[in-house]
C-alpha cells in the first residue's frame, strides 16, 4: 500500500477530502484488500474512540445551577396593573400554551424516533454492525457489563424464528444504552434499551406504530425503556417484544 495513500485514509474517513478524491479512494479501496482491511480497522478505532470519549456526564444539580445562572431574568419590579394584565393574558393563553405544549411533545417524540431510525439504519449500513457478534445471549449480555449503567435479560430464542445477531453501545441524548440486533427471516430488528429518564420523549402508547415507514414498539419494563424498530411486520415486532418482556420479568 502506498504511503501517500495511507496518509489520506484518515482524512477520507473524516469526510474531509474533496469529492473527486473521495471517489478515487472509494474505487481503490474496493479493489485493494489491504487498504480495505486498513479502512476497516481505522473505522473500528474511530467508533471505539467515539464511544470511549463519551465518558463524563454532568450531575443534574450542576445542570440546574448553570440553567439558573444563565436564565433570562424577569424584571424585578412589576406594577400591580401589569400583574392584572398578565394574569388575564395568562388565562387567555393557557389554551394556546397547552396546544403548543402538546405539539412540542409530539415534535420531540418524532425527533427521538427519527434519531432511533437513523441509528438502526446506520448500524445496518456499517461494515461492522455489532460490537459483540454472537447469537448466544450468555455472551451478548455480559459484554455490556461495565459499559452501560444498567443490565437486562435476553430471551431464549431457540425454536423461534428469531436469531440474535449481536449488540453494540448506543447513545440517545448523550445517555449510553444497548442496541441489540435480531434477525427474523431476511429482516433485522434493532432493540434499543435505555434508562427511562434518558428517553422522556419516548413515553408513548403501547402497540406497534409506524414512523417513516418503519414499524416500532416501545414499552417500559423495570425502569428501562425498550424500543424495537424494524422494516419487518408489526406482528414480528410484537412477538419479539413479548419475549423480551417475559425475559425481563424472569
Amino acid at each position, binding site marked *: 500500500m502506498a504511503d501517500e495513500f495511507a496518509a489520506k*485514509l484518515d482524512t477520507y474517513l473524516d469526510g474531509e477530502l474533496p469529492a473527486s478524491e473521495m471517489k478515487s479512494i472509494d474505487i481503490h479501496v474496493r479493489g485493494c484488500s489491504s487498504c480495505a482491511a486498513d479502512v476497516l480497522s*481505522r473505522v473500528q478505532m474511530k467508533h471505539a474512540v467515539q464511544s470511549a470519549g463519551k465518558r463524563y456526564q454532568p450531575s443534574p444539580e450542576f445542570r440546574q445551577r448553570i440553567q439558573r*445562572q444563565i436564565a433570562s431574568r424577569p424584571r424585578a419590579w412589576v406594577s400591580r396593573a401589569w400583574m392584572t394584565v398578565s394574569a388575564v393574558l395568562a388565562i387567555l393563553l393557557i389554551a394556546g400554551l397547552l396546544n403548543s405544549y402538546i405539539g412540542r411533545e409530539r415534535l420531540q417524540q418524532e425527533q427521538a424516533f427519527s434519531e432511533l431510525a437513523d441509528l438502526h439504519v446506520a448500524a445496518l449500513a456499517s461494515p461492522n454492525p455489532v460490537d459483540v457478534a454472537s447469537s448466544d445471549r450468555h455472551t451478548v449480555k455480559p459484554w455490556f457489563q461495565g459499559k452501560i449503567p444498567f443490565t437486562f435479560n435476553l430471551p431464549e430464542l431457540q425454536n423461534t424464528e428469531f436469531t440474535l445477531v449481536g449488540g453494540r453501545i448506543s447513545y440517545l441524548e448523550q445517555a449510553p444504552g444497548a442496541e441489540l440486533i435480531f434477525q427474523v427471516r431476511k429482516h433485522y430488528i434493532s432493540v434499543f434499551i435505555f434508562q427511562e429518564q434518558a428517553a422522556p420523549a419516548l413515553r408513548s402508547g403501547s402497540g406497534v406504530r409506524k414512523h417513516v415507514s418503519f414499524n416500532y414498539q416501545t414499552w417500559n419494563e423495570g425502569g428501562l425503556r425498550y424500543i424495537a424498530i424494524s422494516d419487518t411486520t408489526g406482528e414480528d415486532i410484537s412477538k419479539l417484544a413479548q419475549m423480551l418482556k417475559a425475559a425481563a420479568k424472569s
Partner: protein
Amino acid sequence: MEVSSDRLTAAAFEELAMPLFDQLYNFAHWLTQERTEAEDLVQETYVKALRGLASFQPGTNFRAWMYRILRNTFLTSRTGLKAAATVPLDAEDAPEMPASSGTPESIFIEKSQRHLLQSAIEELPLHFREVLLLCEVEEMSYQEIADALAIPIGTVMSRLSRARKVLREVLQKKLGS
C-alpha cells in the same frame, strides 16, 4: 450551528448554549480530568460567554465559539498552564506521518477494553487529546476545530494525524505490557 441574527440576546443564548451543556462538560472533564475542576470550568465558560455576547460575531459558528471560550479559560487555569507546559516545542514542526495500520486496533476491538482506550486518551498530551476528542466525539469538521482551537486548518490535520499515531502507539504499549 451558525447564528445569523444581528445581535444575540440573553434568551437566545440560553436556547443555543444549554443543548451544548453535556458535551461541553464531557470535554471539560477530559481536559481537567477532575469533576470539580470541570464544573468550575464549564461554569466560568457560560458566565464569560453570557457576559461577552457582544463579542460573538453573527454568522459564525456558535458551538466553536463556546469551545474556544472553554479552552481559553482552561489554558489560563492552573491545571491548564501545567498541561500546556508539557507541549513539546517541536510538535508543530514535526512532519506529518501516516498513522500506522498495524494490529493494535483489531486486538483492542477484540478485547473490547474500553477503559484501556480511555486511559490511553488520558495519557495523550493536551494538544493531541483535544483535537482527537473534538473530531471523533464531537464530530466537528476540520474548519470547526480550527475555529474552536484558533489554529490553522493545516495544523488541525497534522495534529490529528499525529494524535492518532500516538494513540495507537500508547495502545500498543498497553496491550504489550
